[in-house]
């Protein structure tokens, strides 16, 4: 039997968070963590968590699984369970709304700061703005982010300064538009990043790289932003 520990907190009835211990029989199958959560919820409907696509595309079910952030739907028991224990907690550093559901407002506020949309001051062409295959290739490893917040909520710099440090997810998106040949707002974008918090709170510990369920590398993108800032100012 798998020992499952779940972080539970209902602000309407609980004074403080508590841990629910559940014995779970996986029937010898290598289930995904989300399957375990769904089956526990079938027994106890008061358990709250977010989920949608259940295949690692929507980014809704980011949780902390045995101490490491990840998407419950694509994390198999075999890759996370040690000593028959499965501990599921909400993403760290964000306020808990209920059980495993966190308030993502701070995360989205930082995302909004980087103006994650194409800005181009030139007149739009008749059909579309073209890119060479090489220019398009620069966006690989940047555009795939699904905003699950696993990276930013595993970053101590984001824990301590979530209102000032943009965080790995936001910065990855920031570089996605800085690197886009069709975007002409590079200077305005960079001028908003040259403070001691927005980018430079990153100390390169790469927790973000270690947890990204899409295998992206925010630390590398942050390094590129730093180089752009350096080239512009030195």
């Amino acid at each position, binding site marked *: 039997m798998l020992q499952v520990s779940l972080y539970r907190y209902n602000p309407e009835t609980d004074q403080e968070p508590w841990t629910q211990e559940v014995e779970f029989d996986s029937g010898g199958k290598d289930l995904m963590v989300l399957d375990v959560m769904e089956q526990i919820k079938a027994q106890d409907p008061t358990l709250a968590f977010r989920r949608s696509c259940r295949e690692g595309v929507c980014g809704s079910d980011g949780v902390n699984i045995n101490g490491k952030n990840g998407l419950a739907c694509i994390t198999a028991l075999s890759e996370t369970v040690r000593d028959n224990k499965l501990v599921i907690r909400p993403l760290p550093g964000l306020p808990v709304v209920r059980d495993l559901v966190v308030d993502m407002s701070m995360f989205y506020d930082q995302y909004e700061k980087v103006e994650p949309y194409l800005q181009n001051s030139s007149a739009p062409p008749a059909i579309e703005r073209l890119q060479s295959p090489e220019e398009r290739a620069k966006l690989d490893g940047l555009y795939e982010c699904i905003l699950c917040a696993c990276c930013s909520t595993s970053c101590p710099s984001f824990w301590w300064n979530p209102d000032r440090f943009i965080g790995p997810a936001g910065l990855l998106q920031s570089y996605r538009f800085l690197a886009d040949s069709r975007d002409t707002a590079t200077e305005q974008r960079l001028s908003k990043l040259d403070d001691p918090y927005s980018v*430079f709170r990153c100390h390169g510990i790469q927790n973000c790289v270690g947890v990204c369920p899409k295998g992206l590398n925010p630390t590398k993108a942050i390094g590129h932003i730093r180089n752009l800032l350096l080239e512009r100012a030195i």
Partner: protein
Amino acid sequence: MVTAITTMGRSGLSDWLMQRVSAVILLAYFLFIAWVVGNGVDYDSWKMLFSQTWMRIFSLGALLSLAVHAWIGMWVVLSDYVTARLLGAAGNVLRFVLQVGCAITLFTYVVWGIQILWGY
């Protein structure tokens, strides 16, 4: 853009660059000192070494690098852990006091260092 007036150079980029450059100077200095000590020193050779102007400039450079490096590093640590976010309104006051303490300590080390380097 987040404003912060207690950092070394006001800009994140300049702080970042100063921290890297000062780290390289400190590394070079301590490797050099380790090499000198490793080769064996006595009082006369040590005094001879430090009586040369280039060594005094090198040492002063290392000392100033230490001050810059420590200022930036301590600011980063303090603005992570000693903040209004974690400690309430008193957090900002406490951080400022600690930072002034760091500044006075570093200033003392620099002046004292100059006294040692050119005083003997």
